[in-house]
């Protein structure tokens, strides 16, 4: 674990606790951009964690970044934080400058834009769907075809047509149509398949981690609610049915935290998809159970707009579908297994990339 993690986590949690209130999230969902919170996070250096200071970043490692993203999930931050951070990681990988303006990305298999170089600059055209925070992003990282080559390109999002859509959490998930946009661009030829794979992996892990963060606070809120809420003359945590639900909530949350922690550490060391895919499968599955049971315990009050619970559960319901649902990532696991040299499932499960150092490494 990097030395700065505790400090960064503490700082970020302080900012979010004070500023990312229920009301702020309501406003954001109603369509107001939260510049003040953005500025606070930028000042704290959140958007460039994991990028060395000498390259203009905040320092620390990717693992630190993912631990901050857990807080972004925990506080349901209504800003493109994970998108901007991940864009910066990918930019830095490719030797580009990092960004501090709201940025998003669209790097997936089935969508490309097309670019033609002309006298007055590059002419860009294409349609990108499901672009998270598209309407607020100033720039967008995507792949462009020029002839037979695929380039990584950071597009300015000006003069583009935006068709507004939202996920269940009221987070923008827009369709962007670009028609003969003329711009000066930095381009870099990339190995398309590898880049898509890497981007999808980082995105999936970020969602898994954010899901686990949302669960953490849902569990907290729910336990607290059972202490305060009385029914039939006693706090509801005394009801055995409520106790059973709390234990299931705790189990799903603990499992999600544990597997994402494991996936973060593994990702930091190598790109093995096994832990990461497990994390996305597991947190996706847990998301539905946690949302259901948290609402069941909270009862009618929890489904009112006044209550904070739905800001988190709607995110669970959205995020579990994003960057691949359980089937998609389980399929990746299956393909990895089929292509592996492991004769048995048990070998596949236990074949960890061993570390050179002796002794057990323990987080914290």
């Amino acid at each position, binding site marked *: 674990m990097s030395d700065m993690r505790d400090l960064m986590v503490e700082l970020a949690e302080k900012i979010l606790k004070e500023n990312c209130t229920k009301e702020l999230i309501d406003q954001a969902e109603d369509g107001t951009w939260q510049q003040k919170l953005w500025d606070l996070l930028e000042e704290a250096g959140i958007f460039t964690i994991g990028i060395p200071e000498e390259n203009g970043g905040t320092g620390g490692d990717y693992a630190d970044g993912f631990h901050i993203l857990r807080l972004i999930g925990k506080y349901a931050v209504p800003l493109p934080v994970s998108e901007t951070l991940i864009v910066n990681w990918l930019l830095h990988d490719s030797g580009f400058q990092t960004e501090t303006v709201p940025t998003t990305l669209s790097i997936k298999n089935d969508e490309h834009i097309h670019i033609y170089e002309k006298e007055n600059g590059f002419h860009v055209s294409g349609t990108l769907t499901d672009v998270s925070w598209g309407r607020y992003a100033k720039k967008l990282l995507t792949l462009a075809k020029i002839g037979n080559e695929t380039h990584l390109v950071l597009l300015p999002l000006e003069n583009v047509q935006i068709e507004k859509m939202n996920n269940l959490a009221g987070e923008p998930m827009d369709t962007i149509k670009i028609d003969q946009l003329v711009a000066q661009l930095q381009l870099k030829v990339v190995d398309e398949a590898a880049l898509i794979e890497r981007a999808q992996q980082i995105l999936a892990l970020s969602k898994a981690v954010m899901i686990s963060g949302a669960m953490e606070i849902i569990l907290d809120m729910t336990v607290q609610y059972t202490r305060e809420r009385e029914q039939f003359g006693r706090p509801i945590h005394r009801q055995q049915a409520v106790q059973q639900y709390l234990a299931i909530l705790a189990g799903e949350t*603990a499992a999600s935290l*544990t*597997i994402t922690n494991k996936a973060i550490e593994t990702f930091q060391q190598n790109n093995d998809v096994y832990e990461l895919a497990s994390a996305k499968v597991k947190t996706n599955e847990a998301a539905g159970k946690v949302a259901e049971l948290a609402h069941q315990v909270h009862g009618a009050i929890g489904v009112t707009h006044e209550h904070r619970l739905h800001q988190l559960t709607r995110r669970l319901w959205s995020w579990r579908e994003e960057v691949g649902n359980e089937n998609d990532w389980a399929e990746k696991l299956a393909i990895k*297994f089929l292509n592996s040299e492991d004769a048995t499932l048990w070998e596949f499960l236990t074949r960890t990339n061993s570390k050179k150092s*002796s002794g057990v*490494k*323990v987080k914290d």
Partner: protein
Amino acid sequence: MYNFDLPVVEFTEEQNNFRQEVRAFLQKEKDKGTYETRCDSWLNGFNPEFSRKLGEKGWIGITWPKKYGGAERSAIDRYIVIEELLAAGAPVAGHWIADRQSGPLLLRFGTEEQKNFYLPKIAKGECYFAIGMSEPNSGSDLASVSTRAEKTDGGWILNGSKTWTSGAHHAHYMIVLCRTRPKDPNNRHAGLSQLIVDLSAPGVSIRPIKYLTGAAHFNEVFFENVFVPDENLVGQEGNGWKQNMAELAYERSGPERILSTFPLLEELIQELKKEKDLPRLTESMKLVAELNSLRQMSVGVAQYLEEGKDVAITAALIKDMGTKFEKYVAELTRLLVNRKPSLDSKNRIEKYLAQSILHAPGFTLRGGTTEILRGIVAKGMVAQ
């Protein structure tokens, strides 16, 4: 946050090599015909020869001090051994309780004499223990103990009975939780003590309780004026409840609460791999992801246990989730492969499926029922 933030354990190269060593040994013994893979082997795989071989390898009591026959290796090394044994479905029922529970209890609370006497024998794989906790009609209400020991010259006179004791018909000793003082209605946990009872002593009788399969894994054990010498008291007189509770953390978070049906899962995956059936393999990979997260939790708790942390709540959580998983393996497998479970089938999936289904009811009863465990977790969280 309730200690759910478990450590991320990464195995070292040495540990991975050790795993390969254990695995190679198991493969060799299996090839020799020493054992046949089976589900739930830690409850129903009794094989003294195999237990002795593990003892020779130094893999029983592996974490204990060398002076008591142990190997002074880490909790993670122990974890590796036992998960390899379970994944292979090896017959470990004989020494299981002694290695997991009774030995550690004696190490923690026993006298020097007790440690010197019992631990080396356990570590050799030649001395088995049984747990004397449940009583007829007590069920989940463990504190309702009525087996009692009355003080006499140089020892105690024990009367009463224990039930659901796995393996007592093979075991040499039982650690009996009994009442050494009258019941105090205001403090049901007071006045209990733990005594080591020699199961070959006069006055001890053992009646097998047949499991629903007809096999005898459990017993009812009766004590009729059994003399137990003073030196067989474990820890403090009257401290039995606390000691007993400490014992439970060892038994709840281990891989035997996750892997009881692993041999079935392995067969399923092998078959789907052979058929290159990607859709079904994808379905079964959801089980693998679940297993992965349970394993990470379980090994994290093993690490915390070694560090002396209180993991009672998390251990209860893992047992609850792990045993649900063990059951689910069978339920999903039957739908993915459409086979008829049968104990006498020559097809491994059918056989393991039968073993898994028939043993499944026990998974969520033994070692704390689902409902009791969930109560422990909830109350623990609410109290914090």
